């Protein structure tokens, strides 16, 4: 696959200072290439630095060593070219679905009528038509995260960064949201980096899975290409074989 390089992460390391003076190495020497329109999943158990890595891509953390580029430009801070979907939804409780989705557009002073059109398009895309004037507390968890996804898409980012977006959902809703994510991705191709600790989610969604070590500091253990047709079935035999391979590999670590 001779795809165009989208995001390049070069030898990135990060250490946090904890309780004032304890050094906690979180990420060590992570080098990673993400290609255009690729659905990349970063898979790892809790506390393996994967969210920190995503935060570095988002520009919310700066690496101690190494650098990250997006379309050849170094990432120096947060910006609207990267659309981020947070685990805890992070919606404005005092704004309606529509106003939440239009947040980024409004911050960039897009005229109201244009904002409406773009906002409505993505509200429809995530299946929230009819809920435009609802407030977040009136929505279920899955619907809240749909708002989060629509909000990220509406800002027309270059790349989508999803940080365990379905971590707070129940298993049923989670599976359904995975299906929806795949559908949306097919509909509006974007480069996606999707962080999760759920192996089935990773297999269902990813073009490629980056498996991280199960301990700090986080390093990339290995990567798997998933060359299976979509829409996928969780019970597909090739998928299950790959699942077994990854699980074996993970257990060696634990």
């Amino acid at each position, binding site marked *: 696959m001779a795809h165009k390089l989208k995001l390049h992460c070069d030898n990135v390391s990060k250490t946090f200072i904890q309780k004032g003076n304890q050094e906690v190495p979180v990420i060590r020497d992570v080098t990673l290439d993400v290609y255009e329109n690729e659905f990349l999943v970063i898979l790892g158990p809790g506390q393996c630095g994967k969210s920190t890595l995503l935060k570095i891509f988002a520009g919310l953390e700066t690496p101690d060593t190494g650098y990250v580029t997006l379309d050849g430009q170094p990432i120096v*801070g947060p910006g609207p070219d990267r659309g*981020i979907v947070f685990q805890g939804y992070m919606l404005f409780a005092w704004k309606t679905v529509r106003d939440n989705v239009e947040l980024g557009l409004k911050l960039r002073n897009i005229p109201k009528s244009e904002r409406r059109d773009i906002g409505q398009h993505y509200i429809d895309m995530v299946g929230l038509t009819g809920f435009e004037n609802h407030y977040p507390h009136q929505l279920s968890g899955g619907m809240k995260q749909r708002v989060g996804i629509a909000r990220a898409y509406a800002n027309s980012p270059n790349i989508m960064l999803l940080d365990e977006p379905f971590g707070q959902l129940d298993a049923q809703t989670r599976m359904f949201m995975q299906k929806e994510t795949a559908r949306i991705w097919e509909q509006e191709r974007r480069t996606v980096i999707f962080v999760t600790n759920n192996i089935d989610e990773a297999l269902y969604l990813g073009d490629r899975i980056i498996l991280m070590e199960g301990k700090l500091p986080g390093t990339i253990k290995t990567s798997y290409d998933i060359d299976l047709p979509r829409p996928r079935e969780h019970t597909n035999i090739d998928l299950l074989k790959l699942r077994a391979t990854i699980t074996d590999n993970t257990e060696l670590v634990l």
Partner: protein
Amino acid sequence: MAYKEVTVKQPLLLTVLPYVSIAAFFIVWEFAVSSGVIPNELLASPSQVVSTFIDKLSNPNPDGAVMATHAWTSVQEAFIGYLLALLVGIPLGLAMGWFNVVEGLFRPIFELIRPIPPIAWIPLTVFWFGIGLAGKVFIIWIAGIVPCVINAYVGVRMTNPTLIQMARTYGANDWQIFTQLCIPSSLPMVFGALQLALAYCWTNLVAAELLAADSGLGFLITMGGRLGRPDIIVLGMICVGISGAIIGFIIDRVEKKLLAGIRR
């Protein structure tokens, strides 16, 4: 999503109990005074207070003003002081919460002034403002500004840090984050301040009216003391209590209306 509306029945006892409690309180009080268990020079009975109240509606004696004048004076003083406290205190608190420079400038001074009870300002107030309206308003302002600053400050400080990060990734600058995120999310705390500040203002009213005055509910209480008239003292106290409760109730309703969309 409309749900069927049903009336939820509360046990009769629970509905009646508050009224019973109030009625019992007044009956015991009335009986204690009229039977002489508590001498009439020490406490007036409820019936005496009511008749004094009716008398004071039209009779300016012995303290120099009718009820309406007392009430109006107090409400005026309290509200001017209260509004000024809100106008200065809330913006100051919000700014202290977000801008480190503002916090650095005002926090130490504020922390020094905060523990001083408003009454302690009375002598200086007389020097500065004389004994007119301005002095009383100043005392009430001092009382009201403290909860305004603290609540607004804490409200901004409690803004979810991940929400702030989220806003940054959507390209919001510091000012946009402050006005569009921190201020709305601090509103529940700020509304709490409206209640608290009013309570502080209203309770310091009596103290403010210890300054020479010729009308006001606090003045009425003081005069009742000087004249040895427990019925006037109790009347003043009850008026301060009831009007404070009414104002608090109104603010509570307004708050619930305005916050309907914010509370989860």
